[in-house]
């Protein structure tokens, strides 16, 4: 397990970067923040493409940069795979040659990616012999992702890699990244503006603002914080629950997941009993009821206790629930008043099965 430690300070015009964080191997660390917050600058610093005035970056026990010790490893010695915000394909090489450019790298760990598998995943088999100038925006993006994957890096830096892709393909690639991190257990630093991607991928979120780390922690910790309001659209935040597969309901194509607070029915996940699954529950998808409703299409009803109710922000209040694990619901102030919700009350959390997204997770 190789961890990445970053401490980066530099100045660009009137912009000041001063960021410190670490990213664990086998985890996806999301750099999140508004446009201009300094995410790309951090990535470039890690890659050795931008000179820092001050700081220290280390990967496992290798020091990549240390302003005090005067260490500054060349980019090619750092073992990074970088998907740039702009694709940066080599215009004079075919797609295939672009993809294979990084494979010559000598690596400590054996090569794990498989060319054909990645080609299939990215659906670029038909364009392998074309030159980049003839590719569509999304095709370029995919080749850039493939090129970084295939270079077998010790740390993967991905700067908004999925922006030009459709949701289905996004999903496939996200799944692949989730698998990848588990297999090769390298740290993955991932920049995105999409809350969706954060909740699907993140093991850890670093929230940047104006060149500084504003907050960091698990997605639950960061995305739920009310002081981070301006960064996150109402209710798109949520919680992530670690579960294990309990049993498969084949006839209804459902999977029953067990977690400390009870069971969750979700659309079928192809995994055997005992497999660890991480599910993400958006707070706006959670409804509350004081009595257990009958004859309703909602399959997941969890008995929970209200931990806290936030002051109203506009129409809504955020309710933190204790279902042995923390859970979060976003409901209207009006409902909260009408149902007379109070801290400590026992209520039912209603979660539609189709609203729950699960993903295999080791």
């Amino acid at each position, binding site marked *: 397990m190789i961890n990445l430690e970053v401490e980066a300070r530099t100045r660009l015009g009137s912009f000041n970067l001063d960021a410190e964080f670490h990213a664990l191997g086998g985890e996806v660390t999301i750099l999140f923040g508004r446009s201009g917050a300094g995410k790309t600058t951090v990535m470039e610093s890690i*890659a*050795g*493409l931008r000179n820092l005035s001050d700081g220290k970056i280390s990967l496992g026990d290798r020091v990549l940069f240390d302003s005090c010790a005067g260490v500054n490893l*060349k*980019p*090619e010695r*750092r*073992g*990074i*795979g*970088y998907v*740039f915000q*702009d694709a*940066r394909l*080599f*215009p*004079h090489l075919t797609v295939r040659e672009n993809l294979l*450019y*990084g494979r*010559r*790298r*000598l690596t400590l760990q054996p090569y794990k990616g498989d060319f054909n598998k990645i080609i299939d995943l990215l659906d670029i088999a038909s364009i392998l012999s074309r*030159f*980049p*100038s*003839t590719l569509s925006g999304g095709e370029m993006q995919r080749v850039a992702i493939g*090129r970084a994957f295939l*270079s077998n890096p010790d740390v993967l830096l991905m700067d908004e890699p999925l922006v030009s892709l459709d949701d289905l393909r996004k999903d496939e690639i996200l799944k692949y990244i989730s698998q990848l991190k588990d297999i090769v257990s390298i740290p993955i630093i991932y920049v995105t503006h999409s809350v969706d991607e954060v909740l699907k991928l993140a093991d850890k979120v670093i929230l940047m603002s104006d060149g500084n780390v504003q907050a960091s922690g698990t997605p639950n910790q960061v995305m739920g914080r009310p002081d981070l309001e301006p960064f996150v659209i109402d209710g798109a935040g949520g919680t992530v629950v670690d579960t294990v597969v309990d049993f498969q309901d084949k006839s209804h194509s459902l999977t029953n997941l067990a977690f400390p607070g009870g069971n969750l029915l979700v659309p079928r996940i192809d995994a055997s009993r005992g497999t660890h699954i991480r599910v993400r529950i958006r707070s706006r998808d959670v409804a509350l009821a004081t009595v257990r409703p009958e004859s309703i299409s909602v399959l997941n009803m969890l008995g929970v206790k209200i931990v806290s109710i936030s002051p109203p922000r506009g129409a809504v209040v955020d309710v933190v629930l204790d279902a042995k694990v923390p859970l979060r619901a976003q409901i209207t102030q009006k409902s909260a008043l009408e149902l007379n919700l109070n801290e400590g009350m026992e209520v039912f959390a209603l979660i539609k099965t189709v609203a729950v997204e699960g993903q295999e997770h080791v």
Partner: protein
Amino acid sequence: MLTALEWEAIQLSLRISFWAVFISLPFGVGIAWVLGRYNFPGKSFLDAFVNAPLVIPPVALGYILLVLFGRTGLFGRVLEDWLGVSLVFTWEGASLASAIVSFPLLVRSIRISVENLDQGLEKAARTLGANPIRTFFTISLPLIWPGMLAGITLAFARCVGEFGATITFASNIPGETRTLPLALYTVIEMPGGESAALRLMIFSVVLAFIALFLSEFLARRSRKKFRSN
């Protein structure tokens, strides 16, 4: 069709120009790279030094070479004593003269390409594990290739047309240094030499034409590849 003398002059011109460009190319690329990429104290002086052969009339250049590389000259003596080589009055000397005269043209063309090169691509190559050498040969060089080709052609053409420095430094020795322009100079002194001179001039232009055509062909091939319609 060609007289033996004409053929000899053409061969000589080709040989001298080829070696002049071939030998100066690595230096040209190196200096173009340094000038196009970096800022350093004395850059203007290096630039001026590289371009000096443009402003100094070739004849004067030839004299300078004679002084430096002649048997009694600074470098000439060293070359002779250490390597037993003498450049004066040999085709190698003519190549040297041509190389110096055409060097600014070579450097300038390459330099423009170096300045236009997208450093982002080099950075991408570095992150893919390519060291500066590999990056240079697999990314930078292919991308500045059109400019290099232009520089090579320009320099080659200039070498084929080189007269003043050559006749001064390497003399006008038949079969050794009497290139096309020198042959042209020689025949024009003869009565009715105009038609012979015209022939030689046409050969020069045809040589240059072939070089240009070749370079255009190579450039188009490499451009077509990576530029969309």
